């Protein structure tokens, strides 16, 4: 646990933190708004006392009430892993800024998150399905995904508008094709 890291983070990013910096074992965790992701990541990457150069992971998370995008970062300046959680993304229209401007490798990670959760990363120039077939319409890791029904639904004829939603920005509800969880 790196106490100084917490201080550095608070000094640099006090405007963006949604919650206090949380530390446990060798992990430091900050929560931010999805809108401030580019700025925060840029700061973390560039600031001379932070230098989080390596994007260890980018994951989508469906908490059941909201979507999250979780970044794990590594820096030579600290012995801790840094976890950045972009919290509070709408489940109905999940959108988040892309991290590809900093780590081009995030492109595929974001494609995976999109494929599994339907999170649309704005700024990713190749946001299409990566594991599931191109004509698949569901997002399997969402908590409202019902396995027997949704997995069987693969119409094989063209692409639903969800797929194209992000192409023409501002189009209809991107999650419209997703089957809702039963109200129970």
């Amino acid at each position: 646990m790196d106490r100084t890291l917490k201080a550095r983070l608070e000094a640099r990013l006090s405007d963006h933190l949604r919650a206090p910096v949380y530390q446990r074992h060798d992990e430091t965790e900050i929560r931010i708004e999805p809108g401030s992701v580019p700025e925060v990541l840029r700061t973390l990457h560039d600031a001379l006392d932070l230098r989080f150069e390596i994007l260890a992971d980018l994951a989508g998370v469906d908490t059941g009430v909201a979507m999250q995008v979780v970044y794990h970062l590594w820096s030579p300046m600290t012995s801790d892993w840094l976890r950045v959680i972009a919290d509070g993304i709408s489940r109905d229209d999940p959108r988040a800024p892309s991290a590809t401007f900093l780590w081009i490798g995030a492109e595929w990670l974001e494609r995976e998150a999109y494929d599994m959760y339907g999170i649309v990363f704005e700024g990713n120039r190749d946001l299409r399905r990566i594991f599931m077939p191109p004509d698949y319409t569901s997002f399997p890791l969402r908590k409202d995904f019902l396995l027997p029904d949704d997995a069987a639904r693969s119409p094989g004829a063209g692409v639903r508008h969800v797929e194209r939603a992000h192409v023409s920005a501002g189009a209809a509800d991107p999650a419209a094709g997703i089957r809702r969880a039963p109200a129970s």
Partner: protein
Amino acid sequence: MPAHQHAPRTSPARATTRAARPHPQPSADDASARQYSSADDPRVMLDRQVGALFEPIPPYPTRTEREGEFYSLGDGEMFLNVGPHHPATHGVLRLVLKLSGEQIVDVDPVLGYLHRGVEKICENSDYYHVIDQVDPLEYVSSLFQEWAAVLSFEKLMDVQVPRRAEYIRVLSGELLRIASHTLFMGFLALDLGGLTPILYSFIERDEIVEMLAALTGARMLFNYFRVGGVNGDLNHEFMSRLGDWMTRAAKQTEAQAGLLNENEIFVRRMRGVGVLDRATALRYGVTGGNLRASGVPFDLRRAHPYSVYPELDFNIPTRDEGDSLARYLIRVDEVRESIKIVDQCLHNMPDGPVMARLPRLIRPRPGRAWGACEGPRGMLGVYTISDGSDGPFRFRIHDPSFLNLETVPALLPGNLLADTMAVVSSLDPVMGGIDK
């Protein structure tokens, strides 16, 4: 070309003919040429118009900017579909190559042919079964995937692992790293057309795998690591096989490397091919030997030490060239270092239990934990969110091959078709891990 759609169905070729005259000038846009007609066939290459006619991939409208850019053919270019059924792709990787002659212009890797939804399965399993489930991901070195998962769970549960268990983990892990790297060398040679090294590789790998089978009971999917330790202590058969192997390991490694290191054809095909420079490698998030071949000494065993690695004496080999040959040589060096580690483990192995005392049913408090270890291909990470139940609420697997493979579209253009396999193979992807 709306007229085309109303053409009689019986004569698509005739319709094309009529549409093609007067012939489009070089600068004409090829919108009219993109009509697909089954009367055409792909035997004539290097032709923009015909190439566009014959390429039904993708059959749907392109979805992204990058996809649209990729699936439009330039002057004298053609597509070549490599895989998923190709003799030299690793697993079921599919690469759509855009070629100009034999020179690669662009690459679009297509994944998902081995996708099983392991993350979803794990979210529906309990913590014991998760270890079982992650084994087949990196099937060449499955212990490391277990290790990452176990590290994450142990952080969630605040478990202290006994030192003997840690040593056993390092010992078995490093043995498996050697096996994996050896296999890499053989497959690399096979992809370059060399028939023999792969069989020598399998001999060495088989010795290690049999050894581990004696320890864990399985040859490939070990299911050996447990939260809080390992499943079973070192036994006599393992020790005797290991001792036997250790007496000739170094020599055998040198012999294996000697098959390729001094082969002029091999070296000339690898040197300067698929150069990944330091900055690009970092931007891509490449890890493992591929990153170290680009000059970044990033190895979690030193960069973010876990287990008992701080107690062990070994080096992190790096190279600056960043080409395929460097990626190969890094692995040879790593095998040498791993043999050193195994030797130290054998000498420093403490006595004691191999499992921490834990309840039968693991049920951590709600929370989040990220566990990462250095596998043969790079950093393997597991991000677990616990909601207090007996299985993970979110189980995120980060596989190094995934990001290593992502560099292929950056590495291949400009090289020749024959370099495809050399470069992809030198990145050492394992499709089980990539496709999850």
